[in-house]
């Protein structure tokens, strides 16, 4: 193919924010002790929220199911610690809203022993049984979007999948969650790939890793299986290299058509953390109740990579990392490019939380906004080739329908345009609003 001539190890456009990964990229993952209380939102995944199964006062053991999946695009929620249900109530959610959550007082005297297997042994399972087990364990994408993993394992019959792409790009600044997982548990990643390849029935898997993680690339290459076609592809360090569409373009050379799924071009993308998680659930038989997070930034006293029980509150995590510095000013769930700032220390860390970044006052002070000078930097940064300058002026005028004509719905809110804008216009914020407005108009139209 002609496009193969122009194959490179990166995509067009994008930005280069300072990486700042050295706070934690060589620090071993530590297990965090159980906190006194955990909070389990029923909405920790894309799709329909889970339905609570427990009532206040009820006793739960570790890994018990406390929320049932509501339909196919949904997953169950399990408790990460034994204790007593204190409440089922609205609680601050990492995305800034309030969500129905199960609050559990952790039993301090419980040995917190693992339960008998709830996930079947992998050997001998048929692909559709694997999918069932993955949903039963509540596995979601651990890269941030938290899309239920089992849905991706069931491609429609008319869309044959030929390649599994493992996303180890981790292009967000500061975060080292996937990096440490690849360095410390490469065998687990390889085992997860084996399970996924079998479930999908694909012959080929490619692990994409940005070149700023040479130790991860080396460890993965050392542990590659002999009997499967798995390769490691080093990628140029550029944001948003880990965006699904960008990664697919680099690996396969083809663009996912607008509004379509990766399966349309014959691939499935899984975050490397989710892959390791799948290996773990089949290995231990336990559901997804703990995950690795990076707690980092100049505003935290002891930057760390932690293995935390899902539902641990921000307050406890910060305390375990020796607290905040005096000039700490902003706490972000996720990376600084796409993460959400939270004002509430009681917000729990959930399945989709990749990290907690604490910025200082000097970093978080809002920049002065100037008028658009049409410099065109946003056009040259947008990885999907939109015209953010035009979209921004339409957004300011509230002309949302015209924004749709200018392909607003193709925007993935990566924040590259806002990052480069010399006038510091909050473009991606305006686009998020515009997308919501359009969705609302659409749902009203379909209701009418």
């Amino acid at each position, binding site marked *: 193919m002609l496009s193969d001539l122009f194959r490179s190890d990166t995509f067009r456009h994008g*930005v280069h*924010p300072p990486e700042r990964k050295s706070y934690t990229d060589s620090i071993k993952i530590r297990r965090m002790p159980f906190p006194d209380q955990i909070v389990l939102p029923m909405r920790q995944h894309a799709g329909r929220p889970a339905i609570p199964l427990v009532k206040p006062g009820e006793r739960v053991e570790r890994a018990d199911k406390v929320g049932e999946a509501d339909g196919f695009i949904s997953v169950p929620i399990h408790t990460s610690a034994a204790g007593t249900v204190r409440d089922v109530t609205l609680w601050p959610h990492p995305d*800034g809203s309030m969500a129905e959550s199960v609050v559990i007082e952790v039993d301090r005297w419980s040995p917190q022993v693992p339960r008998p297997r709830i996930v079947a042994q992998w050997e001998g399972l048929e692909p559709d049984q694997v999918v069932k087990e993955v949903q039963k364990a509540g596995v979601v994408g651990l890269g941030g979007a938290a899309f239920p993993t089992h849905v991706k394992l069931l491609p429609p019959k008319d869309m044959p999948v030929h390649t599994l792409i493992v996303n180890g790009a981790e292009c967000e*600044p500061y975060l080292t969650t996937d990096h440490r997982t690849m360095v410390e548990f490469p065998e687990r990643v390889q085992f997860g790939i084996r399970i996924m390849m079998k479930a999908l029935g694909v012959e080929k898997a490619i692990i994409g890793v940005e070149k700023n993680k040479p130790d991860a690339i080396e460890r993965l290459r050392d542990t590659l299986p002999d009997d499967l076609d798995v390769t490691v592809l080093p990628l140029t360090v550029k944001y948003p290299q880990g965006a699904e*569409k960008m990664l697919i373009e680099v690996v396969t050379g083809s*663009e996912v058509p*607008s*509004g*379509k799924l990766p399966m349309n071009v014959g691939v499935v993308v899984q975050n490397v953390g989710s892959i390791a998680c799948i290996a773990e659930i089949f290995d231990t038989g336990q559901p997804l109740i703990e995950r690795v997070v990076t707690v980092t930034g100049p505003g935290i006293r002891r930057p760390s990579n932690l293995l935390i029980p899902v539902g641990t509150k921000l*307050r406890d995590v*910060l*305390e375990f990392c020796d*607290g*905040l510095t005096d000039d*700490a*000013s*902003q706490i*972000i769930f996720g990376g*600084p*490019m*796409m993460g*959400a*700032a*939270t*004002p509430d*220390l009681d917000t729990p860390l959930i399945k989709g939380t990749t990290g907690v*970044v604490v910025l200082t006052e000097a*970093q*978080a002070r*809002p*920049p*002065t906004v*100037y*008028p658009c*000078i*049409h410099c*065109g*930097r946003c*056009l040259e940064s947008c*990885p*999907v*080739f939109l*015209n953010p*300058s*035009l979209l921004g002026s339409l957004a300011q005028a509230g002309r949302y329908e015209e924004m749709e004509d*200018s*392909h607003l719905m*193709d925007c993935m*809110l990566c*924040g590259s345009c*806002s*990052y*480069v804008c*010399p*006038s*510091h216009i*909050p473009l*991606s*914020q305006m686009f*998020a609003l515009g997308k919501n407005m359009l969705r609302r108009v659409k749902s009203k139209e379909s209701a009418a």
Partner: protein
Amino acid sequence: MSGPGRSSGTTRGEETLLRIAASPHVHSPHSTPRIMWTVNATLVPLVAAAVYWFGPSALLVIGASTAGAVVTERVFGQPGAVKDGSAIITGVLLGLILPAGFPMWMAFVGGAFGIGFGKLIFGGLGQNVFNPALLGRAFLQAAFPIAITTWPARQASWWALRGDNFALPLMSPNTVDLVTAATPLGAWKFEGTGTEVLDLLIGRTGGSLGETSGLLILVLGIFLAVKKYLDWRIPTSILLTVAVFSGLLFLIDGSRFPSPLFMLFAGGLMLGAVYMATDMVTSPVTPRGAWIYGIGIGLLVVLIRVWGGLPEGVMYAILLMNAMVPFINRATQPRVFGHERKREEATA
């Protein structure tokens, strides 16, 4: 409740002081004022060159046009808008495209007109259609056609004024005693004489204050392009178009048409291509649009210079293409990721 607590810095007394904002939470170090002030800094050597060739008159004219621009921005613009540095760029650039002997009051009026009618009535920074400095000069050319085409000859003393800089407001300058000299383009057009290319490169010629040393402007332009404070496509496409178009004419009839090197370095082409056409506000935002815009300017410059009634056409070429920018932008929207190209859609 236990927690990071008071010592952690998240709480001051009872009040929690965490900031919230929409993502992204990090920003590139470039800012609009930083771009503007960097451009201003690169104008300093150009002003210095103007003073070197034209003496104290250069400072008087540039100072007056800058004062006109800044005062107008300060009085009629948004509060604090002067601090972004863009009005100073307009004022200095306008001064650089005026003759050395130009009366200060006229330069002041030109700066005021450029900012007032070229920028503020459109809504201020970022909103204007035309380059304010060029609009100011177009106004001056219409209002004071004699004064703006009076090109003083070199004086024996560097200190001597190059004309009636201190003409009283509303008075025409006294040009009776002034020894004038033609600009290279005027000499070529009306007298049929050429100019040494070396003189054009270093600026040892008559002409406007800042349009003399082509080499210096080119070096500053490369600096700004490397810093990405101007779109390299615009000067590149303008200069290439002028070189190719005038080169073709020169090949056809070398006695009638000037050489491409003369066309590139004479008059205001360098200053226009590097500093005027690249004004971000009034040039296309799309990369493809930048090429079209630059080619259009290059073609118009040669057309006006060779076949027009005026010896110089850079100002009108840029202003005309400024007017085309909205159309160019619309016609050159980038193909969005995952969408077919329009042409393929049509054939599919």
